[in-house]
């Protein structure tokens, strides 16, 4: 067994009775808490800068709300696919798991492509991060979010590729890992909902 920790560490697979969580799930919730603080600091920066500004663009006019809305649907769908993939995995239906997980990854790429189209539209209107405080925040916050999407794509791809080897060692262990990846994915999805409301609609 190549996992260096497997002999030592309890609660990798089953949950500890008194906390009700296995280690990785505990860890990912803590990680997500820190992510809330990271994006929270940027949202607070947005509030402070907007409240203190002399002029603020009408966001829905310089933003492509249609693409933003489509992207929200795209990400929400990918979250649903993730749940279906996980359910399929728990039911031991590996073909279905792979199908839905591929859809998750495909939709993530669709999201990034649409995001790229939006960026391209902004650049072709000579709208850059330095153009205004709003655009700076827009590019920073959506850019940071896009990095999270890319990280998610990497993790999710791993679990329909080389990561599947773990399933041969222990099925439940693998299901746990996919669940943890799913929690992260839902969080990234949720951040986008806040970003869309704040940066496009308000």
């Amino acid at each position, binding site marked *: 067994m190549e996992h260096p920790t497997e002999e030592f560490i309890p609660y990798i697979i089953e949950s500890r009775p008194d906390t009700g969580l296995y280690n990785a799930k505990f860890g990912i919730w803590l990680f997500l808490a820190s992510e809330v603080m990271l994006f929270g600091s940027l949202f607070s*920066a947005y509030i402070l800068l907007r409240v203190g500004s002399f002029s603020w663009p009408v966001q829905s006019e310089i933003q492509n709300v249609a693409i933003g809305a489509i992207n929200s649907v795209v990400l929400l769908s990918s979250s649903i696919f993730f749940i279906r993939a996980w359910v399929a995995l728990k039911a031991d239906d590996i073909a279905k798991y792979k199908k839905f997980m591929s859809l998750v990854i495909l939709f993530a790429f669709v999201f990034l492509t649409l995001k790229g189209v939006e960026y391209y539209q902004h650049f072709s209107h000579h709208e850059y991060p*330095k153009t205004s405080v709003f655009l700076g925040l827009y590019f*920073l916050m959506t850019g940071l979010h896009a990095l999270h999407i890319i990280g998610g794509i990497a993790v999710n791809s791993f679990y329909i590729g080389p990561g599947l080897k773990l399933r041969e060692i222990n099925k439940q262990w693998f299901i746990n890992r996919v669940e943890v990846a799913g929690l992260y994915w839902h969080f990234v999805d949720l951040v986008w909902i806040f970003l869309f409301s704040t940066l496009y609609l308000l």
Partner: protein
Amino acid sequence: MSGAHTEEHHDTHQQSWWSTYVFSTDHKTIGIQYLFLSLFFLLVGFCLMLLMRWQLAYPGQPLPIIGKWFGEANMPGGVMLPQFYNQLGAMHGTIMVFLGVVPLGFAVFGNYLIPLQIGAKDMAFPRLNMFSYWSFLAGGLLMVSSFFLPGGAASNGWTSYSPLSDIAHDGQTVWLISMAIIIVSSLLSSLNFITTIFNLRAPGMTFERLPFFIWAQLITSFLLLLAFPPLEGAAFLQLFDRLLGTSFFLPTGLFVNGQIYNASGGGNPLLWQHLFWFLGHPEVYVLILPALGIVTEIIANNTRKNIVGFPIMRASVIFLGFLSFVVWSHHTYLTGMGTDITAFFQTTTMIISIPSVIIISTLFITLWGGSIRFNMPMLFALAFLPMFGFGGLTGLPLGLAATDIPLHDTYYVIGHFHYVVAPGVILGLFAGIYYWFPKATGRKMNDILGHLHFWPTLISMNFVFFPMLIQGLMGLNRRMYDGGATYSFNHDILYWNVVISWAAWILALAQIPFIFNFFYSIFNGEKVHSDNPWGATTLEWATPTPPGHGNFTKPITVYRDPYSYSLPGAPRDFSPQDQKEI
């Protein structure tokens, strides 16, 4: 299921030299790697200060002998340039806080002791732990290497206030990138520690039975987990300002060198201060709590009695953790906040002093009636109490706006927080090194060298920091390149600069016995003949010396509270936590 084969065949685990000592996932090895690195960074940060003290005591005079080593760009003819002084100041603060004291208190002792004290075989995520260490190493080396950039290292103070740092030279960019890497490292460590404490406790180790050190590390971890990300967000914002020309922190109509600065404007410099201090204040408790945890262990052990009011201490440290998130703006009274906000932060600041005082008081009261053993760890721990208390008390005037405003930009502030961190926290950390050294090496550190380290350190630290309080009350401004000689009203107190500098250099000499002792004792120290040389009760002493991979040689069950010393009817004056009969 993993539970079935957790207990077996770890003795046969063969590992190469590289994976045992360098790329190790073992929490003890990682802790010791952190120890060497953070002590090295502490020394680097301290040396920067020793250089600055020359300039402050003898402004404009060439530094003899070594002055020429720093190059014409920094110290032409051995005379320090103001730009170089500013770099030294900024990097002293950054290195001491983020690369020295925090890793020493949190990462070193946390890594080494958390699994041992809760009865676990390793951290919950050992590979993540290794990644934390290596990213910390990368971030730290990047930070220090920024001295070799064309414009030198960052020079805007450890707080990197905008807009100055927005328009500073490239050293600031490297500072931000290094900080982002270090933040990732501490973030991963902290979630690892929390998961370990919650999920990997041995059977019978309830939260009530956790030693105070574990409680302190737990709260510290939560502070790091939740307070550091906003600084990462702030670092991204400032990086955008510097690299992509945004104006998050640059107001409209900013003048630089008499000319209007070319930026789109519309930003707010105060935003940086708030994001920074939202980290910065919990960070203060990140510095203090591990040292408090260490001192508590040592005091219980060397008074041979239970900590008085241990449950109250536990409640205090939790309360302190929560409250530390709502006091940050007492660092920004000078920015002219409204009176309502000032009143709020004054109130929370006064409230947060209550749990701190409770913790210190319980430790003092514990001394009462104890049969105190004055060994080296205990001496450091005993010195910690009044020094840290003094540091805390000198902070009270800074928590109230009316007294903070005249004092804030003076040496009084420097004296105050150095009393907390240097004679306070660092003495506590030294105590920890002396206390757990026998567990890690199987040998004790030498007592005579220990005394040669302790007494000069304690005395010279007070000669360094107490005069700063006097100077500050007399109005000497901080961050003065010439030590305040520019202003005639300072001339009566400038002689203190010479006193402080000589005390600082004596303090440096006083560290030589420690460094020698540390390395000498690893190989030649007096051997300990027991796994529990101090007669302690907590679980780390139930391991072999030094603990091997997997820590415990037998399954651990916990039967009692952490500080079960001198129980009535017990055959010895200590009853280890894992021992069924007292």
